[in-house]
């Protein structure tokens, strides 16, 4: 008998702090698999954000820098410019990347920094208690929008993958989900492609991964998983928005 599925080498064999049904664990694994695929573990420097993804250093067997809230792309820029031989990626949530760090991500993308950004969108501020984020869907109830997000007052959710795809500096931009085996296999392919852009020095690559947050959505794990495929994927359409090199 042969082992056909095992933990990636870049992912530490430890228990995560994520809630049951949270997709962060799955996305962590896919990122680790992509690192193993290109054999970049030894020269990888990850940049962690603030949010549930803050414990990146505890789960990945790589060097990690902890950036101030939203500033991960700026920190990654410095790391990559100081150590051009290293493989640099940031791992950020939607409260971090799409709210507090909007300026940093847009300018890092516009400069075409040779980094990879993994953006986990769960439509809420997960760690701080489920407040409304710029990505919160219209009508979604959160702790700071108890009657649901009002489009006239709060605006419509930001679609980051499409927004960044418009910038000249961006080489690759895609939105993926990990809620079903089919979507997960595609997500794995796109994450590997995003990493390949940096491995080959082809420029800025961006992955938006839709994730469930059962705790803050007030749902059980299966219902939250279902919501990603229906309500979320309906507004945040999955797909590749920019692929300049056709890798």
């Amino acid at each position, binding site marked *: 008998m042969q082992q056909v599925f095992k933990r990636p080498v870049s992912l530490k064999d430890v228990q995560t702090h994520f809630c049951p049904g949270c997709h962060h664990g799955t996305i962590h694994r896919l990122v680790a698999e992509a690192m193993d695929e290109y054999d970049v573990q030894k020269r990888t420097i990850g940049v962690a954000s603030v949010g549930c993804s803050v414990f990146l250093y505890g789960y990945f067997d790589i060097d990690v820098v902890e950036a101030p809230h939203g500033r991960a792309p700026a920190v990654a820029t410095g790391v990559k410019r100081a150590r051009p031989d290293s493989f640099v990626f940031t791992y950020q949530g939607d409260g971090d990347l799409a709210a507090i760090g909007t300026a940093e991500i847009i300018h890092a993308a516009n400069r075409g920094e040779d980094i990879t950004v993994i953006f986990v969108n769960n439509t809420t501020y997960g760690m701080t208690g489920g407040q409304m984020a710029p990505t919160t869907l219209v009508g979604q109830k959160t702790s700071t929008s108890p009657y649901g997000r009002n489009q006239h007052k709060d605006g419509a959710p930001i679609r980051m993958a499409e927004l960044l795809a418009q910038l000249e500096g961006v080489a690759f931009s895609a939105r993926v989900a990990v809620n079903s085996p089919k979507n*997960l296999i595609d997500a794995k392919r796109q994450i590997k492609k995003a990493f390949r852009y940096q491995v080959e020095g082809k420029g800025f690559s961006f992955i938006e991964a839709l994730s469930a947050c059962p705790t803050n959505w007030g749902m059980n794990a299966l219902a939250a998983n279902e919501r990603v495929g229906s309500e979320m994927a309906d507004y945040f359409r999955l797909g590749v928005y920019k692929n300049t090199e056709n890798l």
Partner: protein
Amino acid sequence: MAKIIIDEIRCKGCGLCTVACPGKLLSLTEKINLQGYTPATITCQDKCTGCALCAEMCPDVAITVFK
């Protein structure tokens, strides 16, 4: 002949594997593990084809698959 091993201590009982399994061979147990969750278990090991979709979907990498 395939075999899966579920790490009962790691499993958080989210049930994502139970819906991912094409043969619906997985279910959650009644007993509570060290973390306080009800871990998943395989009901009929003989019918497992080793497709590894359960392991792919598991957010906690708690499933190992042999084929």
